[in-house]
C-alpha cells in the first residue's frame, strides 16, 4: 500500500482547521452543501490527529499499524467514516462515556456527513448547513479538549 499523502499528525490537524476555514468561505457564498462537504473533513482530520496523539505516533501509516496490532483486526485508515474513527477513539480512551447530551446530538448530526456529498446535484438548505456547522464546531472542540 502506498503511504498516506499528508498523513502527518500536524498535517491532519492543520487540514482540520483549514477545511473549516474553506467551508466558512463557501457558507458565506451560500454554497450550503459544498460548505458541509468541506466542514466534514475537519471532523475526520481532527479525529485522525487525536488518535495519533493518543497513541503517540506521527503519521497515519504508523497509526494504522498500531491500531491493527492493538485491536488484532485488519483495518484501513483510508476510511472517511467518522463512526469508525470514533469507535477506535472510544476503545482507546472511552470517549463515549464523556459525551453529554448535547455532544451526543452533535455527533449524530456530524455522522450524517459523507464524502459522497460531492456527487450530489442537490443543495442543502441554509438551516441544514448552519446546524451542521454548529455541530462540527462543538464536536471538534470536544474531541480536542476531552481526551
Amino acid at each position, binding site marked *: 500500500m502506498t503511504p498516506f499523502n499528508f498523513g502527518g499528525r500536524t498535517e491532519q490537524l492543520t487540514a482540520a482547521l483549514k477545511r473549516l476555514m474553506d467551508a466558512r468561505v463557501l457558507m458565506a457564498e451560500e454554497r450550503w452543501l459544498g460548505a458541509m462537504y468541506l466542514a466534514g473533513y475537519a471532523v475526520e482530520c481532527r479525529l485522525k490527529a487525536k488518535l495519533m496523539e493518543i497513541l503517540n505516533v506521527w503519521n497515519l501509516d504508523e497509526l494504522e499499524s498500531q491500531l491493527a496490532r492493538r485491536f488484532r483486526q485488519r483495518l484501513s485508515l483510508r476510511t472517511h467514516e467518522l463512526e469508525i474513527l470514533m*469507535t477506535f477513539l472510544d476503545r482507546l480512551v472511552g470517549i463515549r*462515556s464523556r459525551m453529554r447530551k448535547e455532544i451526543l446530538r452533535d455527533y449524530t448530526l456530524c455522522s450524517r456527513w459523507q464524502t459522497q456529498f460531492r456527487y450530489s446535484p442537490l443543495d442543502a438548505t441554509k438551516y441544514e448547513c448552519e446546524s451542521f456547522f454548529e455541530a462540527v464546531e462543538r464536536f471538534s472542540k470536544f474531541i480536542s479538549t476531552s481526551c
Partner: protein
Amino acid sequence: MAANPETKKKIEEVLRHHFQENAYIDVSDGYQDNIHVIVVSNELDEKSEREKQEILWDLIDDAELPESEKTKISLILPLSRSNLK
C-alpha cells in the same frame, strides 16, 4: 460485535409509539456495536435539521436507556417525506 438487540428494540418501540403507522422507522446495526436510527415521517416536514434531531432524541430519551447504551447511537437520520422527493 453487534449492537445490543434489546437497546435497538426499545428505541424502535418508542419511535413506533410516537410516529404514525405510515412512518418508516429503521433501527439497525452500525459499525461494530453502534446503532443507526432512520425515521421518515410527515411529522418531520418543515422542521430544521436541529429540530428534527431534537424530536428523535427527546423520544429516545423517553426510552430510559442507560447512558452507556444511548452513546452507542452513532447516526440519526430524521427525514421528512419531502426530503426524499
